[in-house]
């Protein structure tokens, strides 16, 4: 590889990163800016907008709803994901490709299709829209992500460890609890964090399936119409940004630990996708 080509590409990659981060950098900038209009030049430093958030009652409810939805989704999707990932990694069974392909389908379906389809079914069944209906939808779209993360954890399991445990007199459940589970635990935590983050940010499904209780993105959506609310939305966005980056950093840390525990090179065994 010629060094000149490398330099050109490096410059391009850096320019690309600037493009990627441009909107993200603006978020904290305007969150601390002492003006009600979102425009340059910046006028001064303030933490006023964070104080406004603290006093907004409706926001607290939305946060609470989002936490309920996010935690339930993370738990259920990881449970379903673990079953599927274990089955995929460990067993051969008929129609495996078809079944797995079908379960992974939400990854490639436009979210609006998933949302509309669920809405029509729920309304036909006469079910009332609530936080539960949002959870149903979120579990559906999060499960494929959970499977992708957990698959690499289960794939790397050494089967002889499991056999040794069974030979030494452990039951199947005992083997799972004392051998398999500890080995895949970092993967499980990574999946929980990932699903929680996806659910926390998901808008379309929540928008269609929510009743009177709104989640955080739906609340933000309703506030975007009011210009006076924008600075505090920027402050809220900044908090969310810090939160999701922290969660994902932890998720990545756990995923790498899982890979290392199984003797794989963490950098090679895939990231979030």
């Amino acid at each position: 590889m010629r060094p000149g080509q490398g330099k050109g590409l490096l410059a391009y990659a850096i320019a690309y990163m600037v493009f990627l981060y441009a909107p993200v950098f603006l978020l904290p900038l305007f969150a601390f800016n002492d003006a009600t209009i979102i425009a340059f030049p910046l006028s001064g430093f303030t933490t006023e907008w964070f104080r406004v958030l603290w006093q907004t009652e409706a926001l607290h409810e939305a946060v609470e709803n989002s936490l309920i939805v996010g935690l339930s989704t993370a738990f259920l999707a990881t449970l379903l994901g673990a079953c599927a990932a274990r089955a995929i990694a460990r067993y051969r069974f008929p129609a495996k490709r078809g079944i797995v392909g079908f379960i992974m389908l939400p990854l490639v379906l436009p979210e609006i299709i998933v949302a509309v389809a669920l809405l029509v079914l729920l309304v036909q069944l006469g079910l009332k829209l609530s936080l539960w209906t949002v959870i149903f939808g979120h579990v559906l779209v999060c499960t494929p992500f959970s499977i992708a993360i957990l698959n690499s954890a289960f794939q790397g399991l050494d089967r002889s460890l499991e056999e040794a445990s069974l030979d030494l007199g452990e039951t199947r459940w005992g083997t799972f609890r004392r051998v398999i589970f500890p080995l895949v635990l970092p993967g499980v935590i990574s999946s929980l964090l990932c699903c929680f983050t996806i659910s926390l940010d998901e808008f379309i499904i929540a928008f269609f399936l929510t009743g009177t209780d709104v989640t955080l993105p739906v609340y933000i959506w309703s506030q975007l119409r009011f210009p006076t609310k924008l600075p505090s939305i920027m402050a809220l966005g900044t908090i969310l940004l810090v939160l999701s980056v922290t969660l994902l950093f932890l998720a990545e840390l756990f995923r790498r630990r899982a890979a290392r525990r199984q003797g794989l090179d963490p950098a090679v065994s895939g990231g979030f996708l």
Partner: protein
Amino acid sequence: MRPGSEARQGLVLISPTLAYSLLLLAAPLATVVTFSFWTQNYLDIDTTLTLDNYRKAWGEPIYRILMGRSLLISLIVTAVTVLLAFPVAYFLSFHVRRRKAVWLFLITIPFWTSYLLRVFLWKVILGYNGVLNSARMGLGITDEPLTFLLYNMNAVVITLAHAWAPFAILPIFVALERIDRSLLEAAEDLGDGPLRRFFRVTLPLAMPGVIAATLIVLIPTVGDYITPRLVGGTDGLMIANMIQTQFSKANNAPLGAALAVSSMLIVAAVAIVIYAIGRRLGGRTQ
């Protein structure tokens, strides 16, 4: 372990997940398809089967325009995203030696920040009083703010290309990583220049990643709702906005269902064509 029992255990283990998908994916999709053949009769649904909704969805100009525009926008977005992403993936795979994971992590971070807010921030950047215009005027580049930035197709394309960037980089990167480096040396030894080598060896071998990136970006962008709504204005609205309107304000869920099914079919058809082309382009070398 007997082979029969292995198959059974596997099926038992995957059955909860499969059951969930059948209940909350297959059943809803089947319902939507059925729904699209019914009609809205003021407050009631007429359950006589009819093709009326499809006649409207495919025949009336407004739906055709929206559908065509959605497809056009997502094709442009896909082309822009994949073309811009390829050099980055190439750089990561061939020029970064250690620190690859750090680069990948940095690329995925913006994607994990709220999609809604990222789109909104583009509105802030591109707007009449926005960041770009106020910066340009502040620096004395112009006196007049640019108006062609926001509320049109350009804005939708820029915003979507930004939102889907990591999805294009990662599959291409993975495909490039899989390329056996000795093949490149062989090409060089046999007299291929860098450009020829790239087009005859590297690119065909990276094709599966490029195709994956294309499909991953194309399919969801056709159905995007937030971006056209926030930065598209009226000329940048897409099919998902119309579907949502049918389900809410217009109160014509069956027509909305027909539009949803139609767009799904069109996306599927386009995806299959792209996949077939990709197989042919990359297939020769495999």
